[in-house]
C-alpha cells in the first residue's frame, strides 16, 4: 500500500486516540477520493502538502478524467508534442485547447467535466465569394479563438459550407454557428460597433443545416436581424456574438469519427444582405452546462 500521507508523528497510524487524520490516509485512498472530484478541485488540493501533490499527479486519477478516446485525440498531434507526458500533462494539454490543421480547428477538454469540445474556424470553410474584396474580408480580432473572422460587406448569394471528420467520444452534441451582426473595432481601448453595412437579414431567414455520415440530419431557420420597425431601439441581435444552434447529433461507440457536413445559406437573390461576421462552428456536448453545474 502507498506511503502514509501523514506529516504527524510516525506511530499515528490506526491506534492513536484521535484516530488518523485526513493526512494519514494512504495515497491509494486519496487517489480514490480524487475520483469524485473535478480536475480543478484536484489541482487545488495538490497545494495541501507534498503527499497530496503526489496523489494529485497519479496516472490512475487522471486517466479517469480524460475522455475515453484520448488516445485517438493524441494521434492528431505530432508525437513530440506529448513525448514523456503523464496523464495529467495530457489532460492539461487538452484543457488549454489544441490547435489543429494550421489553426483552423481547435479541440479542448472541458476542465470541469472532461468533455470534448471542438471549434472550426471560418478559415476552414468554403465561403461563396470569399476571394472577392467587394464581398468578403478577413478581420483580425481577439474576440475569436482563431484570432480572425470573415466579414461580409454585402452579397446576394450568401453561402458558407464546411465539413469535419473528427474522433468524438460517444455523447450527444450540439452544432452551432457563431455569428456577429455588425462590424466591431477597438478605439481608444473601447469596443465600437458600426452597422453601416448591416442590412437584409430581417427579410428572410437564414437556413442552417448539417448531415452526418451516419445520416443524422438537422435544419433550423432564423432571421439574423429584427424587423426594421423598432429602429429606435438597439436590436438585441446586433453588436454581440450569438451561437445559432443548428441541431443535435449522437455519436455512438461504433461510429466514433463521423463526418459532419454543415452549411448556412440565404440565397434569395432578390435582395442583398451584409454587415455580418462569421467566426466559427462549434460542436459541444449538449448538456455541458448542466454537467458542469452537477460536478461543482
Amino acid at each position, binding site marked *: 500500500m502507498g506511503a502514509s500521507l501523514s506529516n*504527524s508523528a510516525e506511530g499515528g497510524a490506526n491506534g492513536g486516540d484521535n484516530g488518523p487524520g*485526513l493526512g494519514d*490516509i*494512504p495515497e491509494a485512498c486519496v487517489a*480514490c477520493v480524487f475520483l469524485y472530484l473535478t480536475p480543478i478541485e484536484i489541482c487545488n488540493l*495538490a497545494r*495541501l502538502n507534498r503527499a497530496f501533490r503526489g496523489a494529485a499527479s497519479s496516472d490512475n486519477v487522471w486517466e479517469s478524467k480524460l475522455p475515453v478516446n484520448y488516445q485517438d485525440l493524441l494521434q492528431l498531434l505530432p508525437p513530440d508534442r506529448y513525448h514523456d507526458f503523464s496523464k495529467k500533462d495530457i489532460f492539461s494539454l487538452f484543457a488549454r485547447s489544441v490547435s489543429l490543421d494550421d489553426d483552423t480547428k481547435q479541440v479542448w477538454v472541458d*476542465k470541469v467535466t472532461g468533455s470534448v469540445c471542438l471549434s472550426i474556424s471560418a478559415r476552414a470553410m468554403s465561403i461563396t465569394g470569399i476571394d472577392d474584396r467587394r464581398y468578403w474580408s478577413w478581420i483580425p480580432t481577439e474576440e475569436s479563438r482563431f484570432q480572425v473572422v470573415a466579414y461580409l460587406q454585402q452579397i446576394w448569394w450568401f453561402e458558407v459550407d464546411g465539413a469535419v471528420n473528427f474522433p468524438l467520444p460517444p455523447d450527444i452534441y450540439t452544432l452551432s454557428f457563431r455569428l456577429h451582426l455588425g462590424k466591431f473595432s477597438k478605439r481608444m481601448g473601447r469596443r465600437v460597433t458600426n452597422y453601416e453595412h448591416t442590412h437584409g437579414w430581417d427579410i428572410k431567414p437564414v437556413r442552417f443545416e448539417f448531415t452526418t455520415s451516419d445520416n443524422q440530419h438537422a435544419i433550423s431557420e432564423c432571421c439574423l436581424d429584427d424587423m426594421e420597425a423598432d429602429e429606435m431601439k438597439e436590436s438585441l441581435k446586433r453588436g454581440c456574438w450569438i451561437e445559432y444552434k443548428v441541431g443535435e447529433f449522437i455519436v455512438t461507440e461504433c461510429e466514433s469519427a463521423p463526418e459532419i457536413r454543415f452549411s448556412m445559406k440565404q440565397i434569395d437573390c432578390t435582395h442583398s444582405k451584409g454587415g455580418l461576421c462569421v467566426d466559427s462552428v462549434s460542436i459541444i456536448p449538449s448538456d455541458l452546462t448542466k454537467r458542469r453545474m452537477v460536478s461543482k
Partner: protein
Amino acid sequence: MASSSSSSLSRVVVKSSDNNLFVVNKKVASQSQLLKQCIDNMEEKGTNDVILIPLSNVTSNILTLVLEYCEKHADFADDDNNNQELKQWDHEFLKKFDYATLNSLTMAADYMVTKSLLNLCCQFIADSIKDLTVQQIRQIFDIKNDFTPQEEADIKNENAWAFR
C-alpha cells in the same frame, strides 16, 4: 481435491488488532474480498475447522462498523446495486461519523478490500472537502504545509492552467 459441499464453511472468526474476536457468517464476510479470499483458500484445502482470520490493521471499533456495513449489504446482495433503501441506509450510516472515524473506516475498507464501502467513504470525504479552501482544510484536518517557497511557486505554475 475435496468436494466443495463437504468442506464448505458457514462461519469464520475474525480477530481485530486489539485482539477481540468476531464470529461472522460467510455471506457477510464475502463482502470483503480479503476475507473471501481467505475463505476460498481454506475451502480449497478442504478444511472443515472454523478458521481464524487476524486483521492486524483494524481495531474492534472500526471492525464493528465494517461488519455492520457488510451485514446490511449481504442482505441486499441479490438485489441490483441501485436499491434506494440501501442507498438511504448508506447515507445515514456514514453521516453519524466524525472525520477521524471516517478516515479509519476508509483505511479499513481499503485494507479489507471492501470496494463499495471504500468508494462510499471516498465520495463522502470528497463531498465534504470540495468546497473548502486549502487553508480551511489544513486547519480542520491539521495538515501541515511542508512545501518550500520554491515548491509552492512550482505547484502554482504547474497547475495554473486549471484556474485560468
